[in-house]
């Protein structure tokens, strides 16, 4: 059998890619890096921020995103899709603008959202589906919400299908479910850290997604520490002597402590990555912990290049 070489766009070969994971693991950073990596390979990419928090655009040094599309980098556009605006648009599309005004003025949005839980997620994903249908982008990367669980967000369609029996919301839920369960149109990237609890939760989430018929393109393990040998003060003293340089004793001790800390962290992370690889037969991308100050465009480029070069070492699905 021919070994097909992968590249990033063929790893993320669906039109929509939902980047998901627990709070703070690096979803936004990874979304941006994947977008840059795919744009570098010639894809037109849209980054979708579903929270409107501003973290995504800040990474590109741009001002906060709005509901309008803006360009973040060559080949990468960005925009916000929030439930409230998606609701207004949804109702407007159904000639029900008056209803949305009414709902807002009477503070009934929450009542509606509770009557049909998941409706907010459906509206967001419905909007994403509409952009996908428009064909304006080769790839739409969705930076999934931090609050709530991956499964709540992605399970909203199937939940609503059971709760709502008729009407445009049902149609919307059905279409979103079609999108989510069609691997040609949509896949998920799970972001996690090489730590025990995140590893356990990622494995559980992956299993549940499979049960829901949602395909996973890759798992990104973020915040990877470099490896290095454990050393002793004697090792350092010996090296210093043979190099003919002076290393003061306190400094030697610090060098040793830092080296051993690095080795210890790396060891633990290796163990957790090993567990994850045993648990999940999926492509993995491992991104380094960057010691630099706040992340910006330069660091994104490093991570994007890392994604691309690791994708190239993955074996293509025959």
């Amino acid at each position, binding site marked *: 059998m021919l070994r097909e070489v992968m590249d990033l766009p063929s790893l993320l070969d669906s039109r929509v890619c939902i980047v998901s994971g*627990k*709070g*703070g693991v690096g979803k936004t950073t990874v979304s941006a890096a994947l977008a840059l990596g795919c744009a570098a390979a010639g894809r037109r990419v849209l980054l979708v921020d579903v929270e409107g928090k501003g*973290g995504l655009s800040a990474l590109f040094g741009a001002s906060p995103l709005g509901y309008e599309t803006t360009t973040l980098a060559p080949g990468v556009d960005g925009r916000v899709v929030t439930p409230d605006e998606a609701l207004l648009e949804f*109702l407007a599309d159904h000639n*029900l603008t008056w*209803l949305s005004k*009414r709902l807002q003025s*009477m*503070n*009934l949005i*929450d*009542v*509606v*959202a*509770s*009557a*049909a*839980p*998941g409706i907010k997620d459906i509206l967001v994903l419905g909007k994403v589906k509409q952009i996908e249908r428009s064909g304006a982008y080769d790839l739409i990367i969705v930076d999934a919400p*931090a*609050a709530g669980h991956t499964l709540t967000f992605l399970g909203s369609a199937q939940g609503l299908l059971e*709760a*709502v*029996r*008729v*009407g445009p*919301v*049902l149609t919307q839920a059905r279409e979103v479910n079609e999108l989510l369960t069609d691997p040609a149109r949509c896949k998920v990237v799970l972001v996690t850290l090489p*730590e*025990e*609890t995140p590893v*356990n939760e990622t494995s559980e989430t992956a299993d549940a997604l499979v049960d829901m018929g949602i395909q996973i393109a890759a798992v990104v393990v973020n915040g990877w520490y*470099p490896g*290095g040998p454990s*050393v002793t003060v004697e090792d*350092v003293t*010996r*090296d*210093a002597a*043979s*190099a*003919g*340089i002076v*290393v003061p004793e*306190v*400094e030697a001790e*610090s*060098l*040793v*402590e*830092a*080296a051993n*800390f*690095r080795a*210890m*962290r790396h060891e*633990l992370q290796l163990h957790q990555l090993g567990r994850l690889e045993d648990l999940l037969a999926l492509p993995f991308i491992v991104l380094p912990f960057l*010691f630099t100050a*706040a992340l910006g465009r330069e660091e994104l480029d490093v991570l994007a290049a890392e994604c691309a070069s690791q994708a190239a070492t993955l074996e293509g699905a025959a």
Partner: protein
Amino acid sequence: MSSGHTAADGAASDLASAYDTGEALTALVRRSNTLVFCGSGGVGKTTTAAVATMHAARMGLSAVVVTIDPARRLAQALGVTELGDLPRLIDPHLWDPDGERAPGGSLAAVMLDAKSTFDNLVQKYSAGPEQAERIIDNRFYSNISSALSGTQEYMAMEKLYELHEEGEYDLVVVDTPPSRNALEFLDAPNRLTRFLEGRAFRVLTAPARGGMRVINRAARLFLRTVSRVLGSEVLEDVVEFFAAFEGMYEGFHERASRVRELLSSEQTAFVLVASPRRDAIEEAEYFAEELAAMSLPVAAAVVNRLHPRFHTSLAEATRLRAEGLARDSDDTGDGATAVARLSDLYANLASFQEVAFREEAQLERLRKLIGDAPLARVPFLGDDVHDFATLRLLEDNLFPQEPT
């Protein structure tokens, strides 16, 4: 990191201030009857809340922690693998293996079950079992009691209030769900009661009489449209729920204001947990400002998952040294591999010093914001925290004590 000090000086003064912090935090635990751990997602609220409760128990208090959604292995350690209503006592052998605790200390934990806490409230405030049953069986109710944003926050506060009222504990520690702002849980009781009041909805569904007719024609159109969008069963559930809930708002409302009173009492302390990253600290700042605006100052802060600090020279100097050595190691010759090894060690030390330096700067921002309140520094432990041995290790960091 100041260049004038030697490593030993820096370490000694750090230790002294750590003991001061430990003392201040211990005093806070002693004088409070309620501690609320808050902060953004994944920073360590659940873990540090458990540590503080254990510390209180070891100090001789009868302490209980209300945890929310703990990682499974931590839940196992606390003996709360199932959601529950009643706190469970934890065997002292687990958290005090050497029998060092002060007399009277006991440790209990309960994992918040928002739905059943809500059910209990409904039972308490309903006119009778039939009304309660009608509500609890309603599908809309089951959505709000499990999925409405803010319900979990409110029920955490409600549980806190319940445990406080029972008066069985010296200290009730409550964990909170991940939230970006303090209002998410402080305002949750009010938001939920406003929601339950559903004033607008009641007007809409009230039977037509006299002057109401005009409103009602509009109302009918409104309801018909909503049911066209969502389906009529869904709407029936809603209408039925509000009908069944009739007469219970006052009780809920009053309860919410008592919960609020407890939160603003002198014996309630808010502990803000953060990680030492710019975005996390910005969220913490926002949190602290909001609390202050409501006259609920941050009583203590915990900066969790700090990188270790390796005392020596400045990071810049270490980095220069690494780069110099890297250039030297390009020369082939005796000792070149030794130079390369040393260069790598210097580069590694420089990276950790840079990270520690930046974390320190973030921490200072938080320190300014909380004034005199103690700020505890908790290192990243490398391994997950899910047994009492590691909780004890964190306790030593959260409440450092001078060896006697």
